[in-house]
């Protein structure tokens, strides 16, 4: 062992302070998801404006894949934040994300195929975009605050999966206020918002967690 390494060890030992071991990633992810679920339930129970509902509602596949993207994105972020977890967790939210996008696209096709006139479809795309982006801000802040405790060695995959999870969670919450079927424009707005949120959380998270 070189003198420099010995000196470093001596310095680290001098700086040693007691630390509380971090809880398991799954337990921490469950905490975040539970807090968000409770807050969402409170908001949903509060009287609110329900937007126009068309005869075309979201399919179960869309809803479940959206929720799965959110849950797996958040769980993956917590797993990736600690050294020992497999880096394959970064792929966890990708499969449900693809299913979500494809099923939304299929819904758009159904509307188009049914020949519903454009005038009968609500034009709420900008509101959808704003909702997802605005709701994502507190969700992302809370998530990054929790992830920061782990001081991840590789912050980018953590921030990226966290971004996907937060964007999907916001899109899922949107369904309580936006219970009508998606149009092409809605799908574009959802995807743009998910992309923007994922990018912003990945960029800010990379700095915040680094």
């Amino acid at each position, binding site marked *: *062992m*070189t003198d*420099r*390494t010995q000196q*470093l*060890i*001596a310095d*680290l*030992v*001098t*700086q*040693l*302070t*007691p*630390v*509380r*071991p*971090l809880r*398991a990633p799954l337990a921490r992810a469950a905490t975040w998801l539970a807090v968000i679920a409770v807050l969402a339930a409170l908001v949903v129970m509060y009287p609110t404006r329900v937007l126009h509902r068309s005869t075309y509602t979201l399919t179960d596949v869309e809803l479940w894949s959206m929720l799965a993207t959110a849950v797996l994105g958040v769980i993956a972020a917590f797993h990736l*934040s*600690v*050294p*020992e977890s497999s880096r394959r967790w970064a792929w966890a939210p990708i499969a449900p994300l693809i299913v979500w996008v494809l099923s939304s696209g299929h819904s758009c096709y159904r509307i188009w195929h049914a020949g519903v006139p454009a005038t009968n479809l609500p034009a709420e795309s900008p509101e959808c975009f704003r909702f997802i982006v605005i709701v994502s801000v507190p969700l992302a802040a809370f998530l990054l605050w929790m992830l920061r*405790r*782990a*001081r991840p*060695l*590789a912050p980018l995959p953590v921030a990226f999966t966290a971004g996907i999870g937060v964007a999907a969670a916001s899109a899922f919450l949107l369904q309580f206020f936006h219970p009508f079927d998606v149009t092409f424009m809605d799908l574009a707005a959802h995807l743009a918002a998910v992309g923007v949120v994922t990018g912003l959380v990945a960029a800010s998270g990379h700095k915040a967690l680094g």
Partner: protein
Amino acid sequence: MAAAQRGDARAYDDLLKSVVPFIRALLRRRIKSAPLLEDVTQDVLLSVHRVRHTYNPARPFTPWLAAIVARRGVDALRRGGRISRLETQDEDAAATFADSEANNVLGSHDAERELEELLAQLPDAQRQALQLLKVRELSLAEASKVTGLSIGALKVSVHRAIKSLRAKVERDAASR
């Protein structure tokens, strides 16, 4: 490690000292350079200190440490790759500075001494004009006041001095 998490300095000291050979052995598979190996070993120790709270005492310590070593090893290799892409190897650099003859040639080009020798060979008026205007960088008006020569005479002196120096340098270079 569990004791270190509770703040036991002696246990932490023993642990860090005992894991250094293990860290080196893992890194040696990827890193051949001894100085880099030492740097990355220290980087791993710093990382262990930074994320020691992420170790779960209920689980084995070695996989946790190996994951940190792997991460820091990859980081070092990526950093090395980025540096090597940005830097250019000068293959002649070693030959230039290791070769004794090259060093002698470089030594003979002692600019200050050579300039003094060259200036000494010039006529007084030319030498003085050159020193004032080119070495001390005075203006023509200032040099005129110092020497008492007209501005035109100074210009002519400098022109002739430079012409003489150029001829002398070219002769020297040709004779080498």
